[in-house]
């Protein structure tokens, strides 16, 4: 029997923390290539697709899973527990998607405290009637015993603030073809990139790949929100006055949003060598404002209604400040 045939199949796990499910769907979006993945790997744990309990994972031997794709941020004690379990059981732990990488959309909750979120969700929303101000508690005594639910943390964390992460695959969700590339490298097991690398993406920015017409001197007199202006479908969005996260975002997605005539939202995170996409974006946009007059600059900036939310849409928990100051 050749060595090839005796080579054991890889053990693959996919888990979701605070996620929308899109990352798991992006694994399914590999379409018929999924069959290649399944041919090369046994899926041992994948809550969205398989019926397997946490205790089964907990009882696996340490380092018995070859590759875990962890998508979603760490929002509560359950996410944290599973991140720790999967770290222990996996040889390679990959933060898969923007949420696991930098906090993602759930990370926008870091603009508020847990108390503010609870107050809004359980008392103030227009559809809520809650005169007793009931809020979830983690443990309750019933006659059959104690019922427990996970504790929601005050903050949202990217995966690497909770456990050590080997690789990051950015994207909301990551492009399926890039997943296949990464998977084939990892399953080959040779020429692995250094630990801590961002894989399945490029080093340079999206602007580098974008086909729209760009001039050398970008000058903006007025910023528009996308619905305020008719896109000419060929000029750089920023030159038209629409904020596009391209200059502060890693390429690798194939500039899909811009190809679809929508400005980049920055889901691939900052390019190589930068830790904070929002700060990079402020530096870039700041230089492009076409005025030297303080009052006029104020007026131009007024059109950028929510810089924090816009520039840190996918990256607040992983950014320098990490959350709103309390």
């Amino acid at each position, binding site marked *: 029997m050749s060595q090839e045939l005796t080579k054991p199949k890889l053990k693959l796990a996919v888990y979701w923390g605070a996620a929308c499910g899109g990352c798991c769907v992006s694994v399914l979006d590999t379409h018929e290539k999924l069959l290649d993945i399944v041919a090369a790997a046994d899926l041992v744990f994948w809550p969205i697709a398989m019926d397997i309990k946490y205790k089964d994972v907990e009882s696996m031997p340490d380092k018995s899973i070859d590759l875990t794709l962890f998508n979603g941020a760490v929002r509560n004690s359950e996410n944290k527990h599973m991140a720790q379990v999967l770290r222990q059981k996996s040889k390679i732990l990959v933060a898969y998607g923007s949420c696991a990488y930098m906090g993602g959309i759930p990370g926008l909750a870091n603009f508020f405290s847990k108390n503010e979120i609870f107050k809004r969700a359980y008392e103030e929303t227009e559809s809520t009637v809650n005169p007793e101000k009931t809020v979830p508690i983690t443990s309750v005594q019933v006659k059959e015993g104690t019922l427990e639910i996970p504790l929601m943390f005050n903050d949202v964390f990217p995966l690497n603030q909770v456990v050590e992460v080997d690789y990051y695959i950015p994207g909301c969700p990551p492009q399926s073809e890039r997943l296949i590339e990464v998977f084939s490298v990892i399953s080959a097991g040779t020429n692995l990139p250094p630990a801590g690398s961002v894989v399945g993406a490029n080093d340079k920015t999206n602007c580098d790949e974008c086909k729209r017409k760009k001039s050398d001197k970008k000058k903006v007199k007025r910023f528009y929100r996308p619905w305020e202006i008719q896109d000419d479908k060929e000029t750089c969005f920023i030159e038209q006055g629409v904020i596009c996260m391209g200059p502060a975002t890693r390429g690798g997605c194939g500039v899909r949003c811009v190809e679809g005539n929508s400005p980049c939202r920055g889901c691939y995170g900052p390019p190589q060598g930068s830790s904070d996409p929002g*700060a*990079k974006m*402020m*530096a870039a946009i*700041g230089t492009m404002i076409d005025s030297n007059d303080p009052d006029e*600059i104020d007026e131009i*900036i007024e059109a950028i209604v929510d810089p*924090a939310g816009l520039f840190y849409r996918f990256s607040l928990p992983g950014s*320098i400040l990490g959350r709103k*100051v309390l």
Partner: protein
Amino acid sequence: MNFRPTIVAFLCNWCAYTGADLAGTSRLHYAPNVRIIRIMCSGRIEPTFILKAFKEGADGVLVCGCHPGDCHYQEGNYKCLRRFKLLEKFVCQMGIEKERLKLEWISASEGKQFAELVNEMTAAILKLGPGKVQKTLELEHLKTN
């Protein structure tokens, strides 16, 4: 405990730093709370520097460059001004008080103005109390509640 603010000041080489130097050589007394970092031009300042200063525990950040029109590199200070105004808006959204971040123009001959500026900013921050960025991040590491 006596609160002694730490202010990180980014001063441009050509005007503001020379101005601060003049304050020193003129033996002017001013608040010792400022930690000066010399940079070649205020246009070199990236928002990252300022955010990092806050994260590392600065109670305030001061940025000084040449007066408009006087930049050694023609228009670096204007670039600084535009970035600064955008950053200021962001910093306020993040819950950091506006008074903790300041941009002023200081020429090489304005040693006295620099000393006054540092005194004023120190007084303003003393009134506000310690910066909360680090404390928030420490709380964050408790990871619960």
